[in-house]
């Protein structure tokens, strides 16, 4: 219970007018930043950092923590409403969120589902962080290159759940994503790879413009073909009530949200794996559980799983940051830079040397979580109104959003070019029956897998034994083998009559 009293003392630090105001301000800003595609929490925190030097460190980090946290909520808004993920983690939310808002005509409910799941996932993550922070951080350390490689291999196989009806097309796009991700500088030696002599390509294909293009701008092109259609959805009542979800919806939402909450926290702690990976794994895990409607058609479960996972991961990422001074993500690294600028030394001594600071930050996450939920709940009716804007007006607006988002990732037109090119590519692919999700996911996972696998091989001098000698990686390798072999085994079991035949997965 010691940690609990520490947390309470953290709340005592928090409950000054100044700090609460900082939390609210950070939360609002985080929502805005998160909702704007391309401007993720990294840019948000980095932009705000210089402003906070005038504050005392506790207030400053509380504000940045709230911003970082609320950002995870905001990312889902544009995903659900206009089909453009606001940031990496929101890609998965889009798969079910966008259909639920448009095809099913339940935009308010989709947003609320996303907010509630974020809240549940985040709360689980924070509770785990409060009571097991340092332990969690130590556990994250156990994941070296070999363990990460095994885990990522398991994650890669679960792309199989996403390929849809045509496995060949799915595999082609998975391979295509890997190929695209390998452009740029070699992750270990720094030698140029597939740069075709262009210094722009030397840095590889940037993730955010690529995703905005493939997923978002391809939508715009599709919309151009439908611009004369009448907007089907007319939202006449602007009230919170009309976006309430039913008790039945809530029951569907809870299990995946809770499951993802735990999973996400765990993924967030791992070195190098961020909220995007967590959201993806949350969604993939949901595929193996039962959903009332098929995933991808606008299922509540499909929104709850990734949203809860990414918020939990954001909380989990604080464990190594606070307990060991290791940033789990790019945003973590910027926060870390901030800590150092305020004269605090992040690292194993932070909890001992500056307890009021560390616990104040954790307490502020709880408060930010609650405040963000309330604010975003309140703005849902206004946001939903976006859907009743005629398509022909939406096209230029979304295009501008796409351009701004892809420009701002590296302040250059290169991002915009990549966005347009991947948009056209994404459009052609989806028109010809290819599902682009596998490409996006392998694009995220491949670089992580590559660098970890190569590091593992350097450590083991090229021997494969390293993957079975370490207990954690052995477990994942076994899971991997079972996942791969299960379809074959099932056929055998069904033939022997030991297992009932199941419908197509």
């Amino acid at each position, binding site marked *: 219970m010691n940690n609990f009293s520490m947390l309470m003392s953290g709340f005592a630090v928090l409950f000054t007018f100044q700090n609460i105001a900082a939390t609210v301000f950070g939360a609002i800003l985080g929502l805005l930043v998160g909702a704007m595609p391309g401007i993720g929490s990294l840019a948000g925190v980095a932009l705000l950092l210089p402003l906070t030097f005038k504050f005392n460190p506790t207030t400053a980090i509380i504000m940045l923590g709230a911003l970082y946290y609320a950002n995870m909520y905001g990312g889902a808004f544009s995903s659900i409403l206009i089909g453009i993920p606001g940031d990496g983690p929101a890609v998965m939310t889009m798969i079910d969120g966008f259909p639920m808002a448009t095809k099913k005509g339940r935009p308010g409910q989709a947003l609320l589902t996303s907010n509630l799941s974020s809240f549940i996932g985040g709360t689980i993550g924070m509770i785990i962080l409060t009571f097991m922070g340092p332990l969690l951080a130590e556990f994250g350390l156990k994941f070296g290159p070999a363990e990460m490689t095994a885990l990522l291999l398991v994650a890669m196989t679960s792309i199989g759940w996403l390929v849809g009806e045509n496995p060949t097309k799915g595999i082609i796009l998975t391979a295509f994503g890997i190929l695209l991700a390998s452009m740029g500088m070699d992750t270990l030696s720094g030698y140029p790879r597939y740069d075709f002599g262009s210094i722009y390509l030397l*840095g590889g294909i940037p993730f955010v413009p690529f995703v905005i293009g493939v997923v978002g701008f391809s939508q715009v092109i599709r919309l151009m073909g439908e611009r004369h259609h009448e907007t089907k959805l007319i939202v006449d009542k602007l009230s919170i009530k009309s976006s309430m979800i039913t008790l039945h919806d809530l029951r569907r939402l809870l299990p995946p949200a809770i499951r993802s909450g735990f999973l996400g926290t765990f993924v967030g702690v791992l070195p190098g794996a961020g909220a995007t990976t967590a959201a993806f794994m949350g969604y993939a895990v949901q595929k193996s559980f039962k959903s009332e409607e098929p995933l991808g058609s606008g299922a509540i479960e499909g929104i709850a799983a990734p949203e809860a996972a990414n918020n939990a991961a954001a909380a989990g990422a604080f464990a190594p940051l606070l307990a060991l001074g290791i940033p789990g993500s790019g945003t973590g690294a910027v926060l870390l830079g901030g800590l150092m600028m305020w004269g605090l030394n992040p690292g194993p001594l932070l909890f001992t040397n500056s307890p009021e600071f560390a616990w104040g930050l954790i307490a502020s996450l709880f408060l930010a979580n609650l405040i963000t939920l309330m604010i975003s709940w309140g703005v849902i009716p206004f946001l939903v109104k976006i859907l009743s804007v005629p398509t022909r007006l939406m096209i230029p607006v979304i295009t501008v959003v796409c351009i701004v988002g892809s420009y701002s990732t590296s302040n250059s037109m290169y991002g915009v070019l990549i966005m347009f090119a991947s948009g056209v590519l994404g459009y052609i692919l989806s028109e010809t029956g290819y599902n682009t999700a596998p490409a996006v996911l392998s694009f995220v996972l491949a670089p992580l897998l590559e660098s970890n696998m190569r590091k593992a091989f350097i450590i083991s001098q090229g021997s494969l034994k390293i993957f079975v000698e370490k207990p954690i990686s052995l477990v994942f390798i076994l899971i991997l083998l079972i996942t791969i072999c299960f379809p074959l085994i099932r056929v055998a079991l069904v033939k022997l009559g030991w297992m009932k035949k199941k419908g197509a997965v």
Partner: protein
Amino acid sequence: MKKNFFVAFVLLVALVLPLSAQGSSESSGAFAPSKDIEWFVTSSPGGGSDIYTRAIVDIMNKYNLVNGKTFLVMNKTDGGGEVGRLQVSRVAAGNNANHTLLTFNSGDHAPMIQNTANRIENFTPIAVMAVDKQLLFVGEHAKYKDWAEVLAAIKAGKNIVIAGSKGDDIATYELLVKELGVTQNQVSFITNDATSDAITSVLGGHVDIVMSKPAAADQYVAAGKLTPILALANSRFSGNLASAPTLSETGPYKNVENPIWRGVVGPKAMSPEAAAFWSNAFKAVSESAEWKANYIDKYKLVPEFKDKDAAKAYMQEFEKTTLKALGK
């Protein structure tokens, strides 16, 4: 909805204010900044170069060294930083060239000449501000307790793995391997995106040895999680890093030192007057108490100011040796 308008209004004001502040005050003779200064940094916000840049910006603002103008720090990371470097080198002569700066250190310089045809002659060196050096550390659970044990293991034919960051660390590692007279297979190196990642792998016991600059390892040494075992320098470090010997103390070797300098350059087209102005401004920063307390001492760097002419000679020499090492 009122809130939205308010936010929009604040944003609008924030965007417009700098524009109206850009009154032109052309003066002849000695150069003084007459508009906002674009300062390019080719790594991400929060990284080492970014912290270095923003530390200087703070001091310049505090002492009003830039005629009340504003610095716009631009993090341009495309193409591993090459795009930003190329863009700065190509700024055309004129007022823009005199108001453009680029954070430039050996970790930028080496990849630039290795991967592209861009050379230091396309820039105007302005200053070198400080020098950083590395050490080797072992983690709590490492197989080895000190450098002598590592050397013994190498002699016994065991394989050693060192984790470190990119750029400078690789160059230092190559010097070390060469001096030890072993192959890169026997003592291998794992490149991480940042030193913090390398430290993570050592804390988890996945790798035995990590190469780091003092700043990144400081807290872990204080907490007993990392122990310095070898100073990659010509003399020992001070403070809690003093226990680490230099290479020549441990056997028949020469010391390995690969100073990592942190500097600033401008575009080639920058006028000599502007270059002189900037060189003086950076000199003032390097002499300030804040620079010493908030940067040099805090991150345990070696202060080493070189003005524009000395910096030019230094960077040219660096380029020559690096090119030679690359066989170009």
